[in-house]
C-alpha cells in the first residue's frame, strides 16, 4: 500500500514539474514579446519611417535608411537564394532521386542550415568585401542568400517528394519530357509547400544580424547604392542598443518591434498554410 502511494506521489511530482516546464517556456515567450510590444509601441511614430537618423545625441530623427536598406538586402537575398534553392531541391527530388549523391547533399544542407551565420559573414567578407576594399550591400545580400539556399533547398526537396509518383507517370504516358512534367505538373502540385518554405526562409534571414555586420555594415545616411555600405534594421538595433543615448534605445525597441511582428506574421502564415494544405 505504502509503495503504491509513493509511486503515485512520484508520478504526480514528475508530471507537475513537466507542466511547470511548459509554463516556464510560455512565460519567457510572453515576457520577451510583451517587453518588445510595450517598449516598441511607445517609441513607434510616423517620423521613424519617414525621417533619416538625426546626428548622434540629437533628439528625433527616424530609421528610414535602415528600413529601406533592410528591405533591399532581404529582397536581393531572396532573389538570389530562392531560385538556387528551388532548382537545387528539384535536382535532389527528381533527377537524382534515390541516388547516393542526393542523400549526401541533403544531409550536408541540413548541416549548413545550422552553421553559425557569423562564419558566413567572415567568408563573404573575404570574398566580396576585402577585394573591393569597402563594405557593400551586395555582400550582405549574398551572405543572407547563402543562409537561405539550404533552407529552401531542403523544403523544396521534401515538398516535391510528397507529390505522388503516379502523377508524374500519368504525364509521362502523355509523352511529356521529364522537364515539362516537373515544371507543369510537379511544381503545380507542390506550389503551396514551396511557397511556405520560401516564406519561412525569408523569416529566417530577415532577423539575421551577424552576417551583415562585416558585409553590408551600416550607414547613418540614406543610401540605395548596393555597391556601398547599406544600413539594415538589425545592425542598427545592435549599434543603437549598445549606444549611450536614451532615444537610440527607444528607436532600437521600435525597430525590434517592427521586425519581430514581421517575422512572427510570416512564421504564423507559413504554419497556417501548411496546416490548411497538408492536413
Amino acid at each position, binding site marked *: 500500500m505504502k509503495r503504491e502511494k509513493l509511486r*503515485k506521489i*512520484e*508520478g*504526480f511530482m*514528475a*508530471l507537475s*514539474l*513537466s*507542466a511547470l*516546464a*511548459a509554463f*516556464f*517556456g510560455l512565460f519567457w*515567450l510572453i515576457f*520577451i*514579446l510583451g*517587453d*518588445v510590444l510595450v*517598449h516598441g509601441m511607445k517609441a513607434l511614430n510616423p517620423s521613424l519611417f519617414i525621417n533619416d537618423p538625426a546626428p548622434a545625441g540629437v533628439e528625433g530623427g527616424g530609421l528610414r535608411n535602415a528600413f529601406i536598406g533592410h528591405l533591399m538586402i532581404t529582397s536581393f537575398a531572396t532573389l538570389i537564394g530562392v531560385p*538556387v*534553392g528551388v532548382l*537545387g*531541391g528539384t*535536382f535532389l527530388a*527528381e533527377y*537524382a*532521386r534515390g*541516388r547516393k549523391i*542526393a542523400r549526401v*547533399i541533403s*544531409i550536408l544542407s541540413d548541416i549548413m542550415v*545550422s*552553421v*553559425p*551565420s*557569423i*562564419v558566413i559573414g*567572415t567568408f563573404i*567578407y*573575404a*570574398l566580396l568585401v576585402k577585394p573591393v576594399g569597402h563594405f557593400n550591400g551586395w555582400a550582405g545580400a549574398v551572405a543572407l542568400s547563402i543562409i537561405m*539556399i539550404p533552407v529552401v*533547398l531542403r523544403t523544396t526537396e521534401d515538398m516535391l517528394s510528397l507529390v505522388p509518383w503516379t502523377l508524374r507517370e500519368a504525364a509521362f504516358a502523355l509523352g511529356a*519530357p*521529364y*522537364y*515539362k512534367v*516537373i515544371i507543369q505538373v510537379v511544381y503545380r502540385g507542390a506550389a503551396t509547400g514551396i511557397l511556405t518554405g520560401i516564406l519561412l526562409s525569408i523569416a529566417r534571414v*530577415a*532577423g539575421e*544580424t*551577424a552576417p551583415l*555586420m562585416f558585409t553590408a*555594415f551600416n550607414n547613418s545616411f540614406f543610401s540605395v547604392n548596393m555597391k556601398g555600405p547599406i544600413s539594415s534594421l538589425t545592425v542598427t538595433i545592435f549599434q543603437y*542598443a*549598445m549606444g549611450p543615448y536614451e532615444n537610440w534605445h527607444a528607436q532600437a525597441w521600435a525597430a525590434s518591434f517592427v521586425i*519581430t511582428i514581421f517575422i512572427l506574421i510570416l*512564421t*504564423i502564415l507559413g*504554419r497556417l498554410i501548411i496546416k490548411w494544405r497538408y492536413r
Partner: protein
Amino acid sequence: MATTFKKNPGDLVFSIITGVASFSVIILIIGVLYVLISESSLSIGKFGIWKFLASTDWDPVKESFGALTNIYGTIITTFLSLIIAIPVAIGIAIFITEISPNFLKGPIGIAIELLAAIPSIIYGMWGLFTLSPIMSAYIEPFLKKITAHIPLIEILFKGTPMGIDILTASIILSIMIIPFTASISRDSFNLTPALVKESAYALGATKWEVVKNVVIPYSKLGVFGGIVLSLGRALGETMAVAFVLGNNHRIATSLLDAAATITVTLANEFAEADKDIYLSSLFYLALVLFVMSFITLAIAKIFLLRAERKYSR
C-alpha cells in the same frame, strides 16, 4: 531511372541547371573551408595549431593571439545553457505529448515554435535592457547569499553582480535553444507506438513510469540528436550573447565574470581589426568555430538519421 530521361535536350539542360544549383551546397562548404584556411594562413604560420588553441593570450597590441579564452567562453556558456535547457525542454515535450489536454497541444506547440522564430538580436537586446538589470538587482545577489558559505560553489558566484556576465548570457542562450530540443523531443516522443505504452499501462504502470521506462528509452536516440543539434546551435549563437557577455579575454572562474566567446570576439573585433595578423587570427577563430560546429552538427545528424531508421522499421 533518371538516365532514361536524358535523351531529350530540354532535360539535359534542365538537369544540368538544377544539378549545378544543388552542388552549390557542396561548393559552399568546401569554399568556406578553403577561404577560412587561406585567410588564416598567416596566423596559422605564426602561432601553429596547438599553440593557438592552447594559448590564453589575446593581445592586439603585442600581436600575440591564442584562442583558448574564446573557446573556454564558448564551451562554458554552451554547457551552462544546456544544463538549464535540457530538463525544461524535455519537460515541455512530456507535457505536450502526455499530459496536456488536446485543445492545448496545438497552441503550446506553436508558442514554443514562435520562441524559435524570434531573431537572436531581439533576445540579445531584451537580455541587455530587461534581464540583465533583474539579474544584477535580484537574482545574482540572492545566489551569492545562499552560496556564500558553501565551499567550492561559493567560487562560482564571486565578484560583483553586474548582470553582464556568463550567467546572464547562458540563461538567454538556454531560452533560445529550448525550442529546438523541445520540438525534436516532442516529435520523437510522438513516435512511440501506442501499443507499447498501452502494454505498460496494462501492467499497472503510472503515467510517469510509462514516460520514464517506455517513452524516453524508446525515443532516446531522437532526443539525444535534438540535444546535440541545440548544442551546435548554441556554439555559433552570436547576437544573443554579444550584448550581455562583455568582451573579456580571460579564463573566468566565476559565473558573475564577463567573458568572451568566439562569436562575441568576432562580432566585436572583426570590423575593427587593423593589422593583417589580427584579422588573420580572427579568421582563424572563425575556422575553429566552423570546424567545431560542423562536427557537432554532423554528429547530431547521424543520431537523428539513426533514430529515423529505427522508427521507420
